[in-house]
């Protein structure tokens, strides 16, 4: 095991997959010469050449559509959309084509494309640059949506996504590329489905994904130290499909559920997980599940407003205490 940063883990997965399979190419804005906005493709242009690591004109819909067309032909493009905010420009291609053509062609045409999309609220980027769009992608049947919370997942999920014949959206986080963690030295493929218990606990389950897993872990420490409450933390690295079984199992274990999402609550991950709890584990519950979400506003620009609009460990702790008080 070596410790590496999240961006290095993504870079390594790129490198290994390009090396392994000549069908793999990378497409995107500023991915070649400068190695990507978050360095995730650094060094690859030199190593694999401009035919495989391709700096495109700025036109998300163009290179996404082109990548999908190439994927029909068996090429395995890894498409980096510089920021999820600009994925909106490519939405028709992703939703109407990547997600549906396999189905509509009776399985004849496959889209083995990967859409790597950094997103989330980074530091003060304002409303048009802070979108959290995972809920949009997970609502589209035909797409897989995964979201790594650690360098190990970032590495293993990308490798599995490249090898999958389905279109896979990988939701990365602009603020996590510097996060450090252990990544196996040997090749490692992370499952594209499931969830992972990242902290054991018996009193309440905190469900998180991507960055919010880290908030959950911080909150769990505070709860343990200050309240003697032991929280279980579940990492929902696969947002589509969601791990119904894992969610059921966790709720059956602690009987209390808090779902933490960086996005606005409406039609979001929290809403979906709550629905699953309702359908799968209602009679296990000792208390009403609670969501901790972002404020339902466009992300404000000013730092104090931005922090106020986002969940954090303190807000999770407060939610757990409120849930217990109401019980």
């Amino acid at each position, binding site marked *: 095991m070596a410790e590496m940063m999240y961006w290095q883990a993504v870079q390594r997965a790129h490198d290994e997959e390009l090396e392994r399979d000549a069908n793999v190419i990378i497409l995107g804005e*500023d991915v070649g010469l*400068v190695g990507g906005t978050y360095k995730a493709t650094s060094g690859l242009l030199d190593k694999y050449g401009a035919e495989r690591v391709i700096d495109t004109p700025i*036109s998300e819909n163009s290179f996404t559509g082109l990548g999908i067309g190439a994927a029909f032909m068996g090429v395995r493009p890894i498409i980096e959309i510089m920021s999820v905010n600009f994925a909106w420009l490519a939405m028709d291609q992703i939703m109407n084509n990547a997600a549906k053509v396999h189905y509509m062609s009776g399985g004849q045409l496959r889209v083995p494309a990967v859409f790597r999309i950094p997103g989330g609220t980074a530091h003060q980027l304002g409303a048009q640059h802070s979108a959290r769009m995972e809920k949009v992608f997970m609502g589209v049947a035909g797409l897989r949506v995964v979201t790594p919370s650690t360098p190990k997942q970032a590495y293993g999920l990308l490798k599995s996504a490249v090898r999958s014949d389905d279109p896979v959206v990988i939701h990365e986080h602009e603020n996590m590329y510097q996060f450090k963690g252990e990544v196996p030295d040997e090749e490692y493929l992370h499952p594209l489905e499931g969830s992972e218990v990242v902290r054991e606990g018996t009193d309440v389950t905190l469900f998180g994904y991507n960055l919010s897993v880290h908030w959950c872990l911080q909150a769990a420490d505070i709860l343990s130290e200050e309240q003697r409450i032991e929280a279980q933390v579940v990492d929902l690295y696969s947002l589509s499909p969601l791990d119904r079984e894992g969610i059921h199992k966790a709720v059956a274990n602690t009987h209390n559920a808090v779902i933490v999402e960086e996005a606005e609550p409406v039609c979001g991950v929290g809403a979906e997980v709550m629905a699953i709890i309702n359908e799968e584990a209602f009679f296990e519950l000792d208390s009403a599940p609670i969501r901790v979400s972002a404020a339902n506003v466009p992300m404000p620009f*000013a730092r*104090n407003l931005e922090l*106020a609009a986002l969940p954090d460990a303190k807000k999770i702790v407060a939610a757990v205490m409120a849930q217990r008080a109401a019980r």
Partner: protein
Amino acid sequence: MSRVAAFEIEYVQYMDESGQALADLPNWATEVESLEHAYKWMLLTRLFDAKAVALQRTGQMGTYASCLGQEAIGAAIGLAMHPNDVFVPSYRETGAQLIRGSRMRDILMFWGGDERGSNPPIANQDFPVAIPIASQCLHAVGVATAFKYRKQNRIALCAIGDGATSQGDFYEAINLAGVWKLPVVFLVSNNQWAISVPRAAQSASQTLAQKAIAAGIDGVQVDGNDYIAMRDTLDQAIEKARSGNGATIIEALTYRLSDHTTADDASRYRSAEEVEVYKQKDPLLRLERHMRVAMGWDEGKQQSLKEQCQQQIEEEIQAYLTAEAAPPTEMFDYLYESLPKVYLKQRQQLFDEWQQHLGAREETVDTDVKESDHV
């Protein structure tokens, strides 16, 4: 075989790099006041721009996109438009925004991460900066449609970069501007780079101006570092649009002397020699040289103008640095015309928390790692 279409693209330049006139100047450009006035704005923009970069470097402001080397374009836009026209800007048109009435403190506030900077106390209907590249092109044709529909004598001016011409929104917008003969001008600041992607990798088209041909509108290329050429070309395109004769694409050849933004390091992808070549084409130097030879501009005037600008900039920076933070409850305040009930409750809750924790915010765990990487 016979030919069904042919076209050519005009290139406009009035001054060479040394400021020497290459042709008879338009009348207005022989008047001292016109040129001095433009130069004043260009110098103010440049000095302000440098201060803005310094504020970012010292942690007093967020990511900033410098317009170093592109000041002639900003000045020409600002001075050619009428007050009640509508400017639809990109993030690199600080100079034009200043002339159009934004105060320096507003611009600093915007880049400092405070939405209030996008709401300067100006009388016109100019748009705030659009972050999704080229999306504003369609807004501009919408504005122009409204003017045409209301039979108003106004025009829209849309500023974009060379990279933006690759976006579908740009093509869709020029197409509409053509079929509906809209009063709009597209100003493409071709500064040779779109972050790390050079102009040649953006489009195989010989000029960006000629993209107009397919849309059935006029396209012209101009030396964007030559204020006189810039202003003259803009005047004509604006007049044409205003008088109902349709849209124009102006491709202004310039160069981004700075990094893409303060979060970028351009030495990763372009050579110092290339930058050096373009430094010789500096728009301020050129106009200054011209004024020295043609209208007796001298070191004394230059110095006093510089001092005047610097003082103004200092005052504005102080105003920015001492501006009070917005209350967090403001995040709800511009959401709807009047706030729905569910939000009233949230707003009250936030207000109460804020009062309770006033000061305690600083302790919050901040998982941010660094300034993020792009505009």
